[in-house]
């Protein structure tokens, strides 16, 4: 018995070695929050810099390190009139999502929208975290630089709320990480607009001066005061849309002339107080463009160089996402997505044969139909060649592409059926038109190109910085603002400045249609088309590529006219509604 007791005591003694440390976790590969903010350098890197590193999926052209290019971009550009993804002999049908995107045949279950929603609020959540951490350090007596960081991060958060109001209109405003789900409720579109306006007007005076696209400065890729002015110019130009809590009564549909007066008058009545002075929306845009001009932004001589390797520090660029191949900031997947397999192989890349320019796009740039399959682009806008691959194709060595099927992008689109099979019978393989056009139909984007030094299998890494804002856009926004504020002469001057840079013949007069067209020519496929078309009233209208009876994929909806305009606002994703029952769906869905 004594031995039993001794043994039990022994066991009990051993048991006492079980110091609680044994079950404490020791992360080796990650660090705790305390460590992450332990020095001023770490504070900067892990709040400000870290947030810019997370800004992957959103904005012009670029995308996060995923294979499919930016979901946000896809809806901003390819739901408009200048680009689309047709079903290519069954390829790129993917359940009809691309065709539904082009036809506005989406619903609340459209997965792209969920991704965009989650990305926006992920950034909002990370910004909120960073602001709170910085505020705590500031309260504990940290340096004034902490307050500067807070302003900068609030500006970044405002940018994401601007994307949210632009896309989903009625969204929750969440500004703290400790928000309980029961308090996450939607604000009206005008409330979200006012939140962004108030944030930006408060923040801008506190932002640092500095040229964001210049790699030589400490502000490379960051939000400086100039970026702030461009942001508020974008907000102001769209404010008649954003400040309207009603959008499904036809006020944003019916074409350019139907919508013009509503937008113009509304903008005149919207007041924004910036740098101590109250101005209407159009005056605010003009004021911001003036600020940018004063900071030395110009139109640089070579249009194409804006987007290619070596665009670092280009004086036209206002905000870029710094990029390079060896640290892989953001992938640029558009060249991969748009080019045909055989063509990409010859120009030094990898093609997926996806999105192409529409027939509407070819017409906008000045293509003239001369025959059954022939068009004349000799008098087209100079930016046609600069922006798109079309016609017979050549490789980098000058050799013509021989694919075995065809060697020309048919840019005309007349024979480009929206979906090749099975609904469109002329695409039988016996029919040369069908055979050629399906795989080679539609001009392809050329603005961004493969980086010759790319080391990635799909050639999606590049040293070219991804452009978010550029000065030509600011000039065109100002032109529009002058025009809407009653000063057509100044509008014409600015438009012709932009045209002169590429050698296009000057316009002699200006109207709303001309401004929209000029934006299309200059900024084609730069992710602004959706909001521009909404503002000009053409987003829901039929085009040469979408109209009643247009052939389409059998898994997508048929095009139908959204006369009331509910598709100018995206649905709140169904999963978001399911997970938070406080939220309600936008009208029309």
């Amino acid at each position, binding site marked *: 018995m004594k*031995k*039993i007791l001794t*043994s*039990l005591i022994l066991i009990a003694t051993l*048991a006492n070695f079980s110091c609680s440390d044994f*079950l404490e976790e*020791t*992360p*080796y*590969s*990650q*660090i*705790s*929050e305390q*460590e*992450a903010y332990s020095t001023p*350098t770490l504070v900067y890197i*892990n709040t400000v*810099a*870290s947030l*810019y*590193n*997370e800004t992957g999926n959103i904005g012009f052209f670029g995308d996060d390190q995923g294979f499919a290019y930016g979901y946000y971009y896809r809806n901003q550009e390819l739901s408009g009139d200048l680009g689309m993804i047709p079903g290519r002999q*069954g390829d790129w*049908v*993917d*359940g*009809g999502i691309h065709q539904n995107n082009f036809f506005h045949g989406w619903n609340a279950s459209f997965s792209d929208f969920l991704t965009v929603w*989650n990305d926006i*609020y*992920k950034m909002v*959540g990370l910004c909120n975290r960073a602001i709170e951490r910085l505020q705590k350090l500031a309260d504990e007596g940290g340096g004034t630089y902490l307050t500067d960081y807070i302003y900068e991060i609030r500006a970044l958060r405002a940018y994401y709320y601007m994307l949210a109001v632009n896309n989903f209109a009625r969204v929750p405003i*969440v500004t703290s990480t400790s*928000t*309980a*789900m029961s308090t*996450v409720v939607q604000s009206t579109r005008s409330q979200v607009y006012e939140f962004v306006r108030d944030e930006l007007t408060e923040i801008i005076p506190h932002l640092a001066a500095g040229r964001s696209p210049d790699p030589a400065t*400490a502000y490379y890729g960051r939000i400086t005061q100039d970026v702030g002015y461009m942001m508020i110019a974008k907000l102001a130009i769209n404010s008649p849309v954003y400040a309207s809590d009603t959008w499904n009564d036809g006020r944003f549909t019916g074409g350019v002339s139907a919508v013009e007066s509503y937008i113009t008058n509304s903008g005149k009545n919207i007041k924004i107080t910036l740098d101590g002075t109250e101005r209407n929306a159009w005056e605010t845009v003009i004021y911001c463009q003036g600020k940018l001009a004063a900071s030395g932004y110009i139109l640089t001589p070579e249009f194409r160089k804006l987007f290619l390797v070596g665009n670092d520090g280009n004086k036209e660029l206002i905000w870029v996402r710094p990029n390079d191949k*060896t*640290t892989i900031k953001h992938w640029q997947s558009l060249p991969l997505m748009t080019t045909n*397999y055989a063509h*990409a*192989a010859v120009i030094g890349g990898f093609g997926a*044969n996806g999105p192409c320019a529409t027939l509407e796009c070819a017409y906008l740039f000045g293509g003239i139909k001369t025959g059954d399959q022939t068009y004349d682009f000799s008098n087209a806008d100079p930016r046609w060649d600069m922006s798109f691959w079309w016609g017979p194709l050549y490789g980098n060595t000058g050799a013509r592409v021989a694919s075995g*099927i065809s060697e020309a992008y048919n840019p005309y689109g007349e024979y480009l059926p929206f979906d090749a*099979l*099975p609904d469109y*019978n002329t695409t*039988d*393989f016996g029919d040369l038109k069908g055979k050629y056009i399906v795989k080679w139909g539609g001009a392809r984007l050329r603005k961004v190109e493969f980086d010759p030094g790319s*080391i990635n*299998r*799909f*050639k999606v890494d590049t040293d070219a910085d991804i452009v978010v804002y550029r000065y030509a856009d600011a000039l065109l926004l100002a032109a529009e603002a002058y025009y809407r504020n009653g000063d057509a002469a100044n509008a014409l001057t600015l438009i012709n400045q932009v045209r002169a840079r590429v050698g296009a013949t000057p316009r002699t007069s200006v109207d709303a249609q001309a401004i929209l067209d000029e934006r299309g020519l200059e900024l084609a496929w730069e992710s602004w088309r959706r909001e521009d078309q909404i503002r000009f009233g053409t987003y829901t209208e039929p085009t040469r590529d979408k109209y009643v009876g247009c052939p389409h994929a059998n898994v997508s909806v048929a095009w139908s006219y959204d006369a009331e305009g509910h598709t100018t606002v995206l649905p709140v994703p*169904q*999963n*978001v509604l*399911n*997970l938070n*029952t406080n939220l309600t769906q936008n009208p029309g869905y």
Partner: protein
Amino acid sequence: MKKHYQDLVKRLMLTIFLSMVYLCAFAQISVTGVVSDEKGIPLIGATVQVKGTALGVITESGGKFTINTSADAVLSVSFIGFVTQDVPIGSRTNIEIRLKEETTVLSDVVVVGYAIGNKRSISGAVERITSDDMNTGYVASPLAAINGKVAGLVISQNGGNVNESPTVRLRGLNSLSGGNDPLVIIDGVYGSITMLNNMSQQDIEEVTILKDASETAQYGSRGASGVIIATTKKGKEGIGNLSYSGQFGYSQAYKRLEVLSGAEWRDLNTNKFSSSGNDKGASTDWQDWLGNDFISQNNHNLTFTQGTAKSNMLASLGVNSKVGQIRESDNTTYSIRFNGSQTGLGDRLKLEMNVMAFYTDRHDPIGGIWTSALNYNPTFPSYRNLTTGLWDFDPNASMATHPGEASEIEDHTENNRIMPSARASLTIIKGLTLSAFGSFDQNSTIRKQYTPNDHYAQLSGARGSASVTNTFDRNWLGNVQLTYIKEIGKHSINFLTLMEGQSYFTYTDAATVTGFETNVPRYNNFRSGSSVTYGNVTSNAVMYNILSYMGRLNYMFNNKYVVTINARTDGSSKLGANNKWGFFPSASAAWLLSNEDFMKNQNLVSNLKLRVSYGVTGNQNLIQPYNSLELEGPSGVTTYGGKPVVSYAYQQNENPDLKWETKYTFDAGIDFTLLNSRINGTFDYYKSTTKDLLYNYTVAVPPFVYNRLLANMGEMTNTGVELALTGEVFRSADWGLNIGGNLAFQKNELISLSGTYKGEELTTPEWIPLVSSGGAGHTSNTNVTYMAEGYSVGLFRLPVHNGFITDANGKKTYDFVDVDGDGTIDQGDNADREIQGQVTPKVTASMNIQLRYKRFDLSTQMRGAFGHLIYNYTSVSLNNLNQFPSYNVLTTAPGLSIYQVIHTSYWLEKGDYTNVEYITLGYNIPTSKLKAISNARVALSCNNVVTFTGYSGLTPLINTDPLTGGVDARNIYPLLRTYTLQLSLNF
């Protein structure tokens, strides 16, 4: 490390050599005799051994034997099912021995988790397979040796890929977090399914399967998915015994998919596709070209044992070599094992030591290679273009890898594993033993890959890519255990208490370098690659610990009533600060009805036991550490002060409330033995409920930053019935026939996947996709299987076939039923889809037959699974003429004339099958005239003889795990039929 191995091998070889020297016998007289049962029926195969020596023979036909020994020797005669008898020789030279049948075979010692029990006193659902009961066909691993032997244990290999570990499920799916592999214990050390798949089957003495919570609760923290305990062979008393056993196998795929040949492709291309395809003029059968010509499987094991009453040792060497179906793929494992024991302090102290070491060398084909073999253009030559020196490539076939290029991509893995363990047991007083056990498991893997620089996609891109991944796993286990076994009158007590600590550490590093001008150095000199990208050189370290206390009491009264109580508490570092500990109790009771007085006067039932148990087990196995902590990880490179720096970011929603997933199991069973031990059977019913299911829930953004949160919320049940029967149909001197079989029904239901987290209601989407499948030209939602509340996990839910739509040109597309009646066909998760059936078989069954005639024996096993479906995506995608001529199609495609690839219930097929797993014909060679050999056996066997099934694809033997299985997606290798010659020798 390598030096250690060399050392170990050297010492081992020396030991074996020295021991061989002792291997000599000296003969004095020759004794002959006959062994028979009580009725005088001769027993063939009985062991006649000279007591205290290794000298022994096996009785031949007529039960006869001859042995050379000394007159004062004692013969020990044994035979399974009979009481071993010691016979002094005296002056006799001819002896007749009648063995008494064992009235009960229930006294067998059984390893039940930490405890050593006996079959009689077990009150839980425990199954035991000894080496004699294991499969006899081509058996490459301990898992293959027990496949089909246990009701409710499903081992599913996904087609015929030798490099893929099978999926093992005991009583179905218990968790959604991935912790569904049964716990594997090898000689007290925590192992894994992979390890059990790599070991030499000849090293295994027996395998015990713990099914219900009565005993799995001993392993509280890890026991939720059942426990497989493997006990290796140990040294035996005797001068020395060397045995060899080997298998030489040759395999061939017995079914191929018929895709268009070069000529057929050309014909279709010309006649129907206006010659728009890329015809390179050759005719290549890519399946044939990619296949290895000679698929051989070799398996050899050499075991040496020797021992005395005080000490014994065993050393074994094994090699298991498999050539894969695909060119350049193979897998060779070398294993060495040593164990020894020594008693001291007048037998009060026992020291045991065990070392296992493995070296595995394997080459894997790249993923998707089989798909390419099926759909790559057959007119492309199977050699590099003589002019360009490159593989001709079709840029239009961007979703396929060129099979020629694929065959040149190297993927080489080497693995070193060493697992020493030791135990010291001290008997304090009779029946009271204190033991300490420690084990260490070091597992290091290096994986080296290289893609040549002159492949199509490499030429303009990476220009060659080399990568190396190193993984080091280091696991420590230590426990102290106190056991008390005592019989006082009618009371029998078996008490055990234990404290155990475990520590797991994993370190991984990986590097990828691209930009090679030459393919010579490959991964052997990373400096020959010109480009290194941030994020392509990585490392990671992870550690977690588990601390446990356990007590077990097994009490039996009057050989009739048994009660077992287990209580275990586990702490895991992975869980939230306030939830680290979980308590896992269990209780079971058994009634040995056959020992009651009222059962005495009958001969029908010799054993009847009723069992009932209830218990709780836990799971946190496969969740990653650090999920409960708020952490920041590297998120990218930025510039600060002109220098590149790395930023850190919050990367996942942390869950400080993370706790144990717990499973509550009820089990009731009957064990019976009838007709003088000729029929044995077991019947079990169980129902288990898993609560606080660990799952990566989708959560609302905002307020969460990320839309995933690992949390405990849902609930799931499993219900099942299992029946196993073995019967001795016939037995005589020359003939014997045994038939055994088992049957298991299993039903799973996901009760809920919602709950509250920090006071907030969290819900999941109605239909959660599990397995998706897509490919070139796929035109819709790629989800195939789902789970949803109220249904079993792993449901086929596809758009419903409604005939075909044929256009003016005779081209067909699939038509669908408008399930929700909204006028459009939508393939969305919540739209026009219907539940069609489940991934996991509802019923699994197995039957084996052993026939013996004199020295010959014939055995066979059949295994079947029923009540489930398989989605034949291979047919969907390879019957799609829309992708022709860029991709090849099946020979059936032109006739079907379908121009679409989309998910459709049309190709959902019944998965029922019965597979004849093996037929083995064995012969025990007479060895009485051979001095050096005491026992010799040869056998011929054929594995995967035939599969009876209505399934039209390559094989219905695919992964049927509810979370990951059910889809035949062009990537399943043909099943192999293997012919094996087996030889075993005892020296």
